[in-house]
């Protein structure tokens, strides 16, 4: 480990935070009974990953930063009243939410409606167990970390569906149906895309994937650009981020599965949506952007700081797409998943498998990855544009002139020919 980091093993060395937890656990093993260390180690993980990193990020990047940035993108100010630059806005919001009454409709399924936010929150904490923040800083480095992430990230979908059903409201049910339909559709492309990554690294452990990227001095985003784009779109669809948030589209179905929720119950859904987006960003930066490594910089800068920076940068792209792209319709989203991304993901898998086989059968050495990267980037661009053209998605450089309904052959109700209600 000393080869990887400059950090020493003293507990006060903040360049490797795992030292502190190791000191605490060693002390407990010496003093207390066996089981105490078992109980305390997940608590340390929870405090370290969730309370110190995720919650502040949620509040100040997720709520405040997102609102300010979107405000900037839409030429308005955003929250700027509470505290300096409006920085205390998320805390004020949280206090307000806690004071509000959480109403349960009379026809609702009370217990299920109560349980849904709880079930929604738990996986958001569990997800962080496998994200490596540094060579020693991972709570559970299990050999199937990637599958674990996918499994745990599939649970909130269920919670959202149950929330929508139990509210006994038709808009909630519409939202619930949409959540599940989207999750099932995009999960396929997402898993196929990630399979390409796994084929290259031949490990499912997230720490192993980061180590692979370090050892080969390349990030998987260059080797698997297509998989990265598929991951980004699928993740944003599963997370209900705005260009793809048809499950709670307020312009169509009030607030989707959240329609009947209020107060802190709604707050839990809102907050944890941001939590999941952060987790997806952390997972994406771990798998595709080299995780805590940065081409040798991780020796000098604390690795956890690198991962935090990458996560927030990734999250910024989420905000960016949210601020700039209009919401899609449900049929457009479904078509995108099944007609556009699924064939691309399958093709990507085929290409990766061929490259991987060739690499190992012909014993080409490690330098070949750069050739693969160049080939895959070219292929990705070609496929993304070409397949869109084949399906008929053509970018409009010169917008067609708007025509009146009458000119276009539409129905004009009698009496409306003079135009306008004035």
């Amino acid at each position, binding site marked *: 480990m000393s080869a990887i980091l400059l950090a020493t093993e003293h507990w006060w060395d903040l360049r490797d935070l795992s030292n502190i937890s190791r000191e605490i656990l060693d002390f407990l093993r010496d003093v207390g009974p*066996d*089981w105490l260390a078992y109980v305390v180690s997940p608590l340390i993980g929870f405090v370290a990953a969730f309370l110190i990193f995720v919650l502040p990020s949620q509040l100040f990047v997720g709520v405040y930063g997102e609102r300010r940035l979107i405000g900037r993108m839409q030429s308005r100010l955003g929250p700027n009243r509470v505290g300096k630059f409006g920085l205390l806005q998320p805390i004020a919001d949280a206090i307000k939410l806690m004071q509000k009454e959480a109403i349960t409709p009379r026809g609702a399924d009370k217990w299920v409606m109560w349980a849904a936010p709880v079930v929604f929150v738990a996986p958001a904490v569990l997800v962080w167990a496998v994200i490596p923040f540094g060579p020693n800083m991972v709570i559970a480095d299990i050999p*199937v970390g990637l*599958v674990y992430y996918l*499994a*745990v990230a*599939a649970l909130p*979908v*269920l919670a959202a569906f149950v929330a929508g*059903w139990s509210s006994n409201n038709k808009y909630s049910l519409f939202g619930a149906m949409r959540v599940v339909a989207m999750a099932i559709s995009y999960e396929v492309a997402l898993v196929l895309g990630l399979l390409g990554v796994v084929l290259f690294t031949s490990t499912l452990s997230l720490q192993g994937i980061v180590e692979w990227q370090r050892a080969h001095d390349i990030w998987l985003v260059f080797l698997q650009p297509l998989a990265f784009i598929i991951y980004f779109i699928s993740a944003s669809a599963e997370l209900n981020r705005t260009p793809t948030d048809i499950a709670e589209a307020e312009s169509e179905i009030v607030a989707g599965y959240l329609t009947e929720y209020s107060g802190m119950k709604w707050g839990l859904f809102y907050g944890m949506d941001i939590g999941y987006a952060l987790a997806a960003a952390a997972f994406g930066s771990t798998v595709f952007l080299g995780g805590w490594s940065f081409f040798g910089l991780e020796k000098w800068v604390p690795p956890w700081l690198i991962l935090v920076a990458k996560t927030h940068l990734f999250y910024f792209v989420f905000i960016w797409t949210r601020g700039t792209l209009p919401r899609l319709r449900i049929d457009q989203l479904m078509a995108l998943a099944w007609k556009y991304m699924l064939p691309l993901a399958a093709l990507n898998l085929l290409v990766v498998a061929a490259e991987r086989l060739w690499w190992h059968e012909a014993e080409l050495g490690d330098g070949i990855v750069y050739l693969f990267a160049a080939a895959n980037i070219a292929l990705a661009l070609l496929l993304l544009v070409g397949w869109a053209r084949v399906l008929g998605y053509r970018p409009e450089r010169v917008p067609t002139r708007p025509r009146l309904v009458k000119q276009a052959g539409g129905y004009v109700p009698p009496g409306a020919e003079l135009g306008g209600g004035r």
Partner: protein
Amino acid sequence: MIEGAGPVAAFWGLSVLTLAAAGGVIVSRNLFHAVLFLILVFLGIAGFFLLLSADFLAMAQIIIYVGAIAVLILFAIVLTPRASRDNGETRMAPAALVVAIGVAGLLIPAIADTDWRTLASAPALPLADLGRELLGTWVLPFQLASVLLTAALVGAVMLVRSPREEQEELEEEERR
């Protein structure tokens, strides 16, 4: 062998959770609640897999059973009129009892006959070996399962196409 306070506590906790949830599946009147209990059962079984250090199986259990199958069952229930609100008027109780006794009669002798040996050390199966076995030795059953699923998919699509829709589509093609 299960040793140590942690795994033992986990085993009993998971057992109670799984059995209680399984009881809930049977007892609950509301079909929707029954499925929610079923999801708890699936999660409990995933926990057992974890306890037996079969990590990948546990994750697959959650992804497939909780993430896909349970959600599809929920979908089916929501789309079935009246099914979600009350399940009180079933007339199939005697038949169900017969089936249940039959299944129990099949399972209990099988469980009694099985030689439950405990190994000194758990044979940890690395994921790579699992994959190699699945796509090497057992590739035919693996592929057969995929063919079966594809057939089911095609069948489902055929079932939901109504004759009227097909007629309309034909007319549209003719117009072109």
